[in-house]
């Protein structure tokens, strides 16, 4: 079975990202929060960070050796917030894969926990948020996907 430990250190191309005001309103409403003009719910770091990789989901999946049909799941997610996130503000994303851990479960078979991080910085260079994502990537040998 192919070892994906070599992915640690892989850098994403990065991208400058932002979200419009209406996006933050709808997002807040969808997560059960009260929309606030000029402010974004902190969980909006999730899509901002993903876009900040400069890649589409399918492209990240390809890097970790998987496709949409492989049952890859989000296992963990975290944000370290240094500044409030705001709509219409440009954030420069940078990051990459920081860990790959192989696991084996009775039902799930062999899978990798692939962790990647994205830093989003404002134009001033100040970091606004560090986003981390751990994907559960099935590698086969189980009844179903992990998680």
């Amino acid at each position, binding site marked *: 079975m192919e070892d994906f430990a070599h992915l640690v250190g892989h850098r994403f191309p990065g991208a400058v990202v932002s979200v419009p005001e209406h*996006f933050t309103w*709808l*997002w807040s*409403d*969808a*997560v*059960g*929060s009260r929309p*606030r003009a000029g*402010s974004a*719910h*902190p*969980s909006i770091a*999730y*899509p901002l960070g993903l876009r900040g990789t400069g890649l589409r989901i399918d492209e990240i999946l390809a890097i970790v050796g998987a496709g*949409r049909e492989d049952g890859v*799941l*989000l*296992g*963990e*997610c*975290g*944000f*370290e*917030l240094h500044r*409030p996130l705001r709509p219409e503000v440009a954030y420069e994303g940078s990051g990459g894969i920081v860990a790959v851990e192989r696991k084996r479960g009775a039902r799930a078979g062999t899978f990798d926990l692939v962790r990647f991080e994205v830093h989003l910085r404002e134009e001033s260079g100040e970091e606004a948020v560090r986003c*981390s994502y751990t994907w559960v990537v099935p590698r086969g040998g189980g009844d179903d996907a992990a*998680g």
Partner: protein
Amino acid sequence: MRPGETVGTLVVDPVPLAAMKTMAALLDDPTPIHYDAAAVRAAGLGQEPINQGTTNVGYLVELACRVGGGPHSLRSIDVRLNGSVFAGDRLRCTAEVLKIDAEAGLVELELTGKVGTRAVLGGRATVAMR
């Protein structure tokens, strides 16, 4: 506020299908299990559409923010997604104080999310004290 004390609760009852559709559009996520019950049944994953993990993370973020007094209070959060949340479920999330750093003005919270007795979410967050 002291360690072990439950300082916040967020109940989503029922988990709304309409929000899943909104989130699918916002994320440009074509996965039908988040909006089409027939697709969920065909995949053998259950009977109702499955909430996006992103939204479940958002619920715990919202809970931590309420404990801290608003979105500006959240310093960090880490969430584990342990199980599926379906449209129509009653999701109950709680925040319990783990540790207080009075000097830094920070509170560390243990977060949990359950559907009935099934633990579907877990995590920790640090918020600035009001």
